[in-house]
């Protein structure tokens, strides 16, 4: 079986301007932040990001690399409103596709199942249909004749996810209490890359948690990156909690261009190793 180990920079080298990127995790939880930092280093532009958004979307708004955000929400959890995203929305610098959180999930499922859409009640009667003129309804072909929203598939070019453990072949393990939807992100993508806190042998992986923690199998991913602290500053339980102090520092930089430039110079325009050194000092 193939050894899929690589670096984050090698993984993001496949991302080109204008691509649609899927990013796993949820809000400020187990986000593949080392990949996001690699995307910033690469400077790839005009990205569409599909995400249960957190600082992934916020950072790419602040660096001007995000053209369009497709989201169920964008939040830092302990800070309810992502300030860089908020600023981008209010200044009109990004396009937005705002979906109900459940519609977003169905869009991922439709893509994973290679379906054009999945039906739901969510969205009916709300302005989600007004702000998304691309959304259509579909009528049940059965006797009930019920009209439902046809959520289009959220197909993505490349997906990035972060797990607690993985083996070199691409089997991945989530040891926290919520798997989120990272398996669907991989399946909705043409190609997916997984970072993890630690690469272990397959034996260690299987012994390291219950079978149901083995969320990702090797069919789903093309590359595995060992990235300790790779979800920082979002939480990655049980390995580490969210770095609330750092997140507050990050959030404050939305108020002031100089503060953002200083943050970017210190934490983003550096290698991942230097980032990890800077945040642990």
């Amino acid at each position, binding site marked *: 079986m193939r050894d899929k180990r690589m670096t984050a920079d090698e993984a993001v080298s496949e991302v080109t301007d204008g691509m649609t990127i899927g990013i796993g995790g949820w809000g400020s939880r187990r986000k593949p932040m080392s990949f996001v930092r690699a995307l910033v280093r690469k400077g790839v532009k005009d990205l569409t990001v599909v995400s249960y958004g957190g600082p992934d979307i916020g950072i790419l708004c602040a660096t001007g690399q995000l053209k369009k955000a497709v989201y169920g929400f964008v939040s830092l959890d302990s800070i309810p409103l992502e300030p860089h995203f908020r600023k981008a929305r209010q200044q*009109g610098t990004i396009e937005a596709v705002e979906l109900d959180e459940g519609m977003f999930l169905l869009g991922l499922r439709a893509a994973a199942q290679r379906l054009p859409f999945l039906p739901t*009640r969510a969205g009916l009667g709300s302005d989600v249909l007004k702000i998304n003129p691309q959304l259509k309804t579909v009528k049940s072909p059965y006797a009930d004749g019920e009209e439902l929203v046809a959520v289009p598939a959220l197909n993505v070019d490349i997906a990035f996810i972060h797990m607690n453990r993985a083996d070199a072949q691409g089997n991945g393990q989530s040891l926290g209490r919520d798997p989120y939807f990272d398996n669907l992100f991989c399946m909705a993508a043409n190609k997916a890359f997984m970072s993890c806190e630690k690469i272990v042998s397959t034996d260690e992986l299987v012994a390291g948690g219950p079978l149901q923690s083995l969320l990702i199998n090797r069919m789903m991913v093309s590359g595995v990156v060992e990235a300790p602290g790779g979800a920082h500053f979002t939480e990655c339980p049980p390995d580490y909690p969210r770095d609330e102090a750092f997140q507050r520092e990050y959030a404050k930089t939305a108020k002031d261009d100089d503060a953002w430039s200083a943050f970017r110079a210190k934490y983003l325009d550096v290698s991942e190793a230097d980032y990890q050194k800077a945040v642990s000092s």
Partner: protein
Amino acid sequence: MSSREATRADICALAVAECFRDDGEIMVSAMGTTPSLGARLAKATFAPDLLMTDGYNLLLRRALPLGARPNDDDIEGWMPFGSVFDTLWWGRRHVMMGASQIDQFGNQNIACIGPWERPKAQLLGVRGAPGNTINHVTSYWVPNHNARALVPEVDMVSGVGYDRAASLGSRGGRFHEIRRVISNLGVFDFNTPDRRMRLASLHPGIELQQVIDNTGFELVIPDGGVDTTPVPTPEIVGVLRELDPQGYAQKEVVV
């Protein structure tokens, strides 16, 4: 906060709890401090069958104080986000959300102020409000009742109101129900022929005119006088003090 004398925040918490009284064995999802406290009060007293999470992914067998971390023996089940969506589509859920704006038919906005295309203020986005309101019972909490929150027309319909639900016909809107709106001034419902918001009760010490002056649309006022919201007994106040030892809810409610 050791006094057993009920404050306005205590009255609000009990009013919230009453929204869940007859819900039986369903999941309560309460967003915000006073809704969380009220839901816990219901579970701790008259509605023990309610299912409740820690706000993350654990189902808890008992109501814990606000801010308390669950121990292993507090857990009765697992409710990751994937299961939350399944539960809400199933309909066995009653959510109490906040409302940056709400109108007379219960249309709610948490998404943005100003035009969505270029908002003056980006708020939470629609989050789960469209799916919640069309799938299961929803109530709202407004800690600062004023004419900027209770508006003739919301800027963006996140949560579906009765007029919008009616426009979907009898099938499309059949799971839609807005049970109640609780504010710092009173309790409101939609028990009117045309499903317009009605003043159900005034909190003690609140004048009818105060509510009318702070509401941006015409409320339905019941004929023959308005009820007063029940005041929690000293025993209930005692439970509230145990469930909120830091007094978070006291700070949230605008008096």
